[in-house]
């Protein structure tokens, strides 16, 4: 291998490592807010919009992010490919074939900028895709040798604007530089050509805006539809990255080979830039939430708990994930107060009008058997995706909800859509076999439990009586232990100890006397003790299941409270610490 390719190879490896192992949630996040459909209608829908082709190709790539390892490879290939195309563009501009590692390292600068920019999880891959398209189009254009190729721009610029949107400006600038250098040497003709191409590109945008794209604001038409998730915003980094794609080929074309040391230093800087800049581009709080969501989605409950032990963002979404993971592993009653907790909202979050916050709540509803709420959460989350994309993940859950509740026509509608995807189609084909067969659903390994757990009669969903709602689920299906854990946790988190004490015997099925109670989880012991002591005002005959350790711990806690001291670390993970701070 030519040594100059070491830099791009190392760059690829580093990017792959980051997104496959350090930030797989980035891939997951992008994948779950889109649904690429194979079929003419979907393509035609994109082709009917300016810049739709860039968006279509980006969505095609992003669907592979379903597997973060594959997604990371594609993303690394895309960024490295962008750099190689910049390098090829520089060769086309200079006509110089004697390039070095320095040139390749500098050619990767736009990739570094895009890599930095992509830490903003709202950056859509349509943007780097339009840069790749612009460079490819430019290199194709370069294959036309005649001076008369300039006239082709009358067709090429509008066509390319329609395909790539914003990319047309990069393409036009590169073409202007190449044409000026090749046919009209001198800065004045170059400037004139650049102005002409730019003006013509702007004219194309304006004409589209007043004809076929009247329903789109000019910000979309100039800067690309779906190049940023919130389409009313165009970050500076988009312009900077695009500018670098124009600037770097021109700069490289002017540079010599550079010494060996310069090549090595530049290569090392470029390769290390993305990991070094990551803390500045990848916001820790948001990425932690994304990570928890990713782990919950994949039902990696133990990983959720270990992750939250290291860093637990102060957000209901994170707590929803943590508490669900604890409950799914049967640890909620024992370990929930090892974490700070944030009230009932940390168990089941209130609905918020965004596409992110309630997804884990929806997953909790799914596992609890509150199927109509699953439908509501995933439907509203999907409707809250700011760029109006559909989500394959959400559609999957919506289809399941319709299927389990016997609304087959609606289930079929969503299943048909998923059948046109790549990674959900196998599931969809299997699910299609269950349509209109309630008995089959009830006996399926996948849905029998949910079908059994779901509410069979009228029940109003209410956040004010959530504990009763969970108890009702448990009462209806006594094997729904998750609902029981949630009901008890809800009372504990709300400090509703009378209700907790009434429901507490349910956790000891088949035992009629308190003396028979065994294996009582730690937080339940603590709550029982707290309730009895605070009710009686001190001397009370505690039930035998309250361990000596809990009794001692409470005594220490009580002493510290009496002396108005802060509870020490040992007492952090007790119910008392929570309830005192909660109140």
């Amino acid at each position, binding site marked *: 291998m030519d040594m100059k390719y070491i830099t791009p190879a190392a760059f690829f490896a580093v990017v792959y490592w980051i997104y496959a192992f350090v930030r797989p949630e980035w891939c997951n996040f992008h994948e779950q807010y889109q649904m690429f459909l194979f079929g003419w*209608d979907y393509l035609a829908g994109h082709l009917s919009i300016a810049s739709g082709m860039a968006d279509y190709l980006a969505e095609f790539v992003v669907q592979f992010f379903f597997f973060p390892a594959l997604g990371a490879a594609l993303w690394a290939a895309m960024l490295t490919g962008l750099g190689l195309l910049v390098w090829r563009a520089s060769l086309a501009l200079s006509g110089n074939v004697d390039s070095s590692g320095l040139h390749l390292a500098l050619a990767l600068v736009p990739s570094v900028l895009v890599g930095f920019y992509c830490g903003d999880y709202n950056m859509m891959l349509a943007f780097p895709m339009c840069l790749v398209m612009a460079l490819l189009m430019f290199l194709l254009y370069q294959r036309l040798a005649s001076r008369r190729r300039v006239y082709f721009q009358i067709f090429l610029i509008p066509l390319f604007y329609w395909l790539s949107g914003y990319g047309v400006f990069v393409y036009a600038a590169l073409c202007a530089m190449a044409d000026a250098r090749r046919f009209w040497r001198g800065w004045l003709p170059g400037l004139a050509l650049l102005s002409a191409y730019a003006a013509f590109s702007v004219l194309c945008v304006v004409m589209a*805006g*007043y004809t076929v794209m*009247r*329903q*789109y*604001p000019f910000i*979309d038409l100039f800067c690309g*539809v779906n190049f940023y998730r919130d*389409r*009313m915003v165009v970050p500076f980094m988009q312009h900077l990255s695009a500018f670098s794609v124009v600037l770097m080929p021109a700069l490289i074309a002017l540079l010599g080979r550079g010494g060996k040391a310069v090549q090595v230093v530049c290569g090392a800087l470029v390769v290390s830039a993305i990991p070094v800049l990551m803390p500045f581009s990848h916001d820790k709080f948001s990425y932690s939430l994304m990570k928890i969501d990713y782990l919950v989605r994949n039902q990696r409950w133990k990983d959720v708990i270990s992750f939250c032990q290291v860093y637990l963002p102060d957000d209901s979404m994170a707590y929803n994930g943590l508490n669900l993971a604890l409950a799914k592993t049967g640890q909620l009653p024992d370990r929930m107060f090892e974490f700070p907790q944030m009230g009932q909202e940390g168990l089941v979050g209130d*609905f918020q*009008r965004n596409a992110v916050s309630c997804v884990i709540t929806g997953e909790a509803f799914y596992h609890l058997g*509150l*199927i*109509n*709420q699953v*439908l*509501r959460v995933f*439907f*509203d989350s*999907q*409707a*809250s*995706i*700011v760029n*109006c994309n559909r989500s394959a993940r959400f559609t999957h859950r919506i289809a399941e909800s319709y299927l389990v*509740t*016997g*609304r087959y*026509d*609606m289930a079929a*509608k969503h299943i*048909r*859509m998923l059948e046109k995807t790549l990674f959900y189609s196998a599931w969809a084909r299997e699910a299609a076999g269950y349509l209109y067969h309630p008995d089959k659903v009830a006996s399926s390994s996948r849905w029998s439990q949910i079908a059994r757990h*779901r*509410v069979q*009669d*009228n*029940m*109003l*969903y*209410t956040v004010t009586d959530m504990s009763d*709602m969970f108890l009702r689920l448990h009462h209806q299906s006594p094997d729904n232990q998750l609902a029981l854990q949630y009901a008890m946790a809800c009372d504990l988190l709300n400090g509703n100890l009378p209700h907790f004490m009434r429901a507490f015997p349910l956790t000891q099925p088949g035992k009629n006397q308190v003396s028979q109670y065994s294996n009582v989880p730690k937080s339940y012991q603590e709550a029982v003790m707290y309730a009895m002591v605070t009710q009686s005002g001190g001397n009370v005959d505690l039930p035998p299941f309250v361990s000596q350790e809990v009794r001692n711990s409470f005594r220490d806690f009580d002493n510290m409270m009496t002396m108005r001291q802060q509870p020490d670390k040992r007492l952090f993970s007790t119910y008392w610490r929570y309830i005192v701070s909660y109140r």
Partner: protein
Amino acid sequence: MRTTIYCLMLAVLLMAASCAPAPKNAVQKDSLPGMFPDYAGVTIPADIAPLNFEVSDAECVYVEARGGRQGSLTAASGKTYADFDIEGWHQLTRQNCGDSIYLSVCALRDGQWTQYRTFGIFVSPDPLPEYGVTYRKIEPGYETFSQIGIFQRCIHTFDEYAIVAHTALQGQCMNCHVANRCDASQFQLHIRGQHPATLVQVDGQRTLLNTSTDSTIANCMYPYWHPSGRYIAYSLNLINQCFFEDTTKTIEVFDLASDALVLDLQTNELILSDLLMTKDFESYPAFSADGNTIYFCTSRPWMDEGLFDSIRYDLCSIAFDAKNGKLGNHVDTIIAASKQGYSITHPRPSYDGKFLLYSTSSCSVFPIHHPESDLWLLDLATMESHPLTEANSNGPESFHNWSTNSRWIVFASKRHNGLNNLLYFSHVDSLGHASKAFLLPQQNPRQYYDNLMHSYNVPDFTMQKVDLDVRAFAGEVFGDERIQVGVRR
């Protein structure tokens, strides 16, 4: 290479031949074909878009449409659905006004043609001269929306155009595009979200109003134009909703408070009356055809009873003096539905003054979530009501409106799948009898409706194509410059 091309050509020919359009040796079957949409026995206006339909499980469909008077047309394109030529269809409907078109359907399955019993479609002598219909498209959801938009569809073809799409007003909710008696030159439209406004466009002049005042409980909501074009009656609703964990019912929409009033567009003032701003809930006001009466629905505060299933609205009226812009001094109860155990909403008087069309449901102010909700017609001469049995279904029907000649109605119904509201049309004769409703025609109806994720909301006829400068309008919406309405009593 050449061999490959010949092979491909042969394959294409064979594929075409395998679904030859002309049926041979068809087996006769004395039943109607399983069609989607079911157009058998419907009444249509001349010049409506072709009633294309799919025959279930057919590999190929051959349909011969023969006019009762004259003319014929064949749909034999080798598709799985009858795909009529638009011009030919229009001509056939015009030639057979007041008579039926008889459709003979043959379907190919497993190489065998089956010919079904011929059925008729009656072409009413009553025209439907409107250009098309306007409606809002929104996914049938809960609290949020994404791909929302106000659209218009030409009913003579399959062309649909966005009046305002979500892309133009990102993040904003839009609802209630309502024209004055189907006149596209006078319409109003609400924008909700971070940049709320009520757009009133008259003869191309746009006015963006802020209808929230200290004297009223909310922004103006459900509108109805006065025939003069000077006034719009509104209800003001504090809307809420709750969710059920149940298979039959998932959502209930209700008001926490509501009033009614009239907006004077000449002075930009809200005309208030204590009779329409009581502790009871007043909603869905609508002017009579002559503009001298406002019909509206009213209910006692349901919270007094404590249950959603006690929400029941009566149909009432109050006089309106258009000359002086004054509301009457007493309210008449037209139908005391609550006493009879049901609820009336969405009163819509016919423009000829003969009828009043309304929704009934066992309870609720939002019948579209109630499968039992049906359309009823009140004869304003005899004050007797009857259900539009032919037009109704087991699903909910609501959000109805009249054509300008008061012979056609358009309404939304969830009868198709229980979730998506689709548009249906029905003919209402001079005695108030409705015909079997037909679904809004589409080029390939199965494909279209199977893929459709949206609901059609608040449909209305429109005489002409609606013309809104959406780019300028979007600029004004985000510009936040509004005319503040005043109040007078």
